[in-house]
């Protein structure tokens, strides 16, 4: 059911409308029961309504927010999905599906017409209208909003209501992946004019009953949810426990039913005690970025040598205990439908690494590799790398930096440092935000005009086959040219108690693309 793609492939040539469309009833009828049916196939029972679920995420702090523009962490995304809806949602394989939007269509891939679902109500009873959408999207462009999505939102040149349920968005240039972009949880829809986000007013499956930043978020089922019969749960409590062991203990002791971010080291124990494990092949990766415009990275041989120096199998097996897939120095994970599978896997080859590093002449420059608890597993990966370097006679100092301030003070500002990137809704966004010459987070300062051109070509390319080829070429270019060493894609691990049913892996992010609360039910729920 890949509608976007299906539409593109069937409608083919230029001038035809790019349509993301499905009858509202049809979507609900077709999509949710399909999930339910799949779940049923696994667990052998239909979803049951009722019950209370406790969930513990990775972190909670006073930065917790109900303001979609400020969503930054997984727990924020989950909270967002709890109380708000986006215009589209991303499916398990990252395909955008209509949500609050009934149709999203464009003739030129630049001007997009969004038709909203009829009869959707906010939690305060107000009906969803075009003004709400315009407000919700446009506010990201205002610097004062301090939106996490501002860089993405800049793409939208003009947003205006063209009818009570019609919105028109004009982009800076054509972009076939615009519907995917709307799947970002930050772009979920709030009531027009909302400035006080101490209370939520969304259209989502749950209504907030308590929100204390850094402590807890609680919700009860929204009885008037447009996407019924979901959610199945009567109420939900969500908290964040940053201490690994405590989070697991809370699950083991029965204080919570689901925990996010299971440490791979505890999988054996959790399984042994009969807890369920959700492995989601998300495209999150931790990479070493070597800046090409300063330090040793200016020598191409140095970068190549470093890429051969990564013992990827060891990173996967020892750092992630196998819960990862090998990376090939390009940002697209193997599960992605555009993954360049024919690109040869770069091996761990100390001899070639030594050859290239020696050749570069800056092998012992003494430039440290920066890592931080802020970038997932980067400290451990750095240790693996350092030992490999030591084996070929290279002294590679590591500097572990504090988590707070890492992103703004060190990341991308030093010759060599680890970064951590979460999957984006589309390849286009990944390339545009992280690899294009103008990308705000071009970690290695890699500039390739051909790459930039390919990016633009892909955006206006309706032909799926051609686009696939373009994306393939772009992956090869990154693999060869960018200063990115990407040893592995991590598998997201979440654990749940046996009474929780209905969890399915998704590429869109941990816990069913952060949207698990509207899907899960409890085995003893109706009791």
């Amino acid at each position, binding site marked *: 059911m890949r509608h976007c793609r299906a539409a593109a492939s069937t409608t083919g040539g230029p001038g035809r409308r790019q349509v993301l469309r499905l009858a509202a009833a049809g979507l609900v009828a077709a999509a949710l029961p399909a999930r339910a049916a799949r779940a049923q196939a696994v667990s052998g029972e239909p979803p049951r309504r009722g019950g209370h679920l406790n969930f513990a995420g990775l972190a909670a*702090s006073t930065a917790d927010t109900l303001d979609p523009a400020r969503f930054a962490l997984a727990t924020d995304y989950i909270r967002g999905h709890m109380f708000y809806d986006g215009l589209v949602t991303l499916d398990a394989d990252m395909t955008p599906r209509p949500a609050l939007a009934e149709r999203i269509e464009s003739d030129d891939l630049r001007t997009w017409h969004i038709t909203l679902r009829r009869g959707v109500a906010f939690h305060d009873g107000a009906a969803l209208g075009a003004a709400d959408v315009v407000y919700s999207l446009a506010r990201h462009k205002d610097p004062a909003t301090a939106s996490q999505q501002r860089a993405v939102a800049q793409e939208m040149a003009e947003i205006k209501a063209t009818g009570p349920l019609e919105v028109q968005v004009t982009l800076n240039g054509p972009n076939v992946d615009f519907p995917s972009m709307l799947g970002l949880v930050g772009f979920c829809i709030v009531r027009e004019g909302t400035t006080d986000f101490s209370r939520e007013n969304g259209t989502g499956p749950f209504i907030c009953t308590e929100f204390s930043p*850094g402590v807890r978020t609680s919700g009860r089922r929204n009885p008037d949810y447009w996407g019924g019969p979901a959610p199945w749960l009567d109420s939900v409590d969500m908290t964040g426990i940053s201490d690994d062991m405590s989070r697991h203990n809370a699950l*083991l002791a029965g204080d919570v039913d689901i925990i996010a971010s299971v440490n791979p080291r505890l999988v054996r124990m959790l399984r042994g005690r009969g807890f369920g494990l959700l492995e989601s092949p998300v495209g999150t990766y931790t990479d070493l970025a070597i800046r090409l415009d300063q330090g040793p990275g200016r020598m191409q041989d140095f970068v190549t040598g470093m890429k051969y120096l990564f013992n990827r199998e060891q990173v996967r097996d020892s750092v992630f205990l196998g819960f990862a897939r090998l990376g090939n120095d390009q940002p697209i994970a193997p599960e992605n439908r555009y993954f360049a599978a024919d690109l040869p896997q770069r091996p761990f080859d100390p001899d070639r690494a030594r050859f290239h590093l020696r050749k570069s002449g800056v092998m012992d420059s003494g430039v440290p590799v920066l890592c931080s608890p802020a970038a997932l597993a980067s400290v451990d990966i750095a240790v693996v790398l350092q030992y490999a370097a030591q084996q070929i006679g290279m002294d590679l100092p590591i500097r572990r930096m504090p988590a*707070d*301030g890492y992103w*703004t003070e060190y990341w991308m500002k030093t010759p060599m440092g680890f970064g951590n990137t979460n999957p984006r809704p589309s390849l286009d966004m990944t390339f545009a935000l992280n690899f294009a010459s103008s990308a705000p987070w071009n970690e290695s300062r890699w500039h390739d005009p051909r790459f930039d051109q390919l990016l633009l070509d892909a955006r206006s390319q309706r032909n799926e086959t051609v686009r696939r080829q373009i994306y393939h070429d772009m992956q090869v270019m990154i693999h060869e040219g960018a200063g990115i060493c990407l040893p592995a894609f991590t598998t997201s691990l979440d654990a749940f108690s046996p009474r929780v049913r209905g969890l399915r892996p998704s590429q869109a992010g941990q816990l069913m693309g952060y949207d698990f609360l509207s899907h899960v039910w409890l085995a003893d729920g109706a009791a």
Partner: protein
Amino acid sequence: MSAGLARLVARRIGTALCSLVFVVVAIFFMTAALPGDVADMLLGQNATPAAAQALRHSLHLDQPLWLRFMHWCAGMLHGDPGTSLLTGRPVSEMLAPRLYNSLLLAGATTVVSVPLALLLGLACATWRDTHFDRVMTVLTLGVVSVPAFLIATVAVFVFAVQFRIVPALSDIRSIHSVGQFILTFAMPVSTLASITMAQMIRMIRACMIDVFSAPYIEMAVLKGVPPIRIVLHHALPNAIGPVANAIALSLSSLLGGVVVIETIFNYPGLAQLMVDSVMLRDVPIIQSCALLFCLTYLFLTTLADIVALASVRKGRGA
């Protein structure tokens, strides 16, 4: 309260204010020296210089440091600790529930640890150099030296996970009866108490040994006074000063020095709020937390001094 006592209290409050001012100034400028500010932290990995600058402007962070400090001071003088840069909510509103939680935990810990520490400290001093004393010495040193997170984690793993006697997290909302209160607080309080007690026992033991070597204690023994009466009636009143000081020092860390315990039991207290705020560079909250910790410390030590003085005065009959 005699005039002398009143003068002492006044002087103590005066010096306390000096410390307070020092702490507030130091914290403000040192927080300012931390890499990044709240704008950077808010935007996180997605920060671009332009976005951060815009946000900084809207939060008035582009004003000179001293001006912001003056603003904060002016507000404080009117009893207004300001608003959180991050959430825009009044600091007092954010602090109040955390303070309540912290006081609850600290209070429960105090109620448990002080009498027990007194008892064990007295016992160690009474049976000085016996096997009991030696075992307690090693035990208290051991408890102090083993990292708190390990003690807490092991305790949770054993009592909450393996035996399922108590919950792994301390959720105050689930308290509706005394029984539940005890169950909810059992783990954090016993962990915290064991650490606090270990320090107190060592100090109380030292104070009491000092007092026990006084001639009037030997005199009491030679009068045939029973040991319990010697300890409670003869020794304790003379040790109140140093013992109160030892207790005050240990208790003063119960508000701000319990990050680990709060984290492990997911207990929303002040310490966590402060660490969060440091991480997020939310200066008004850091300031207010530091102020609270400083006040607690000064209050407790001053109280101990007054208790000590009052106990001496009683003896001296002034």
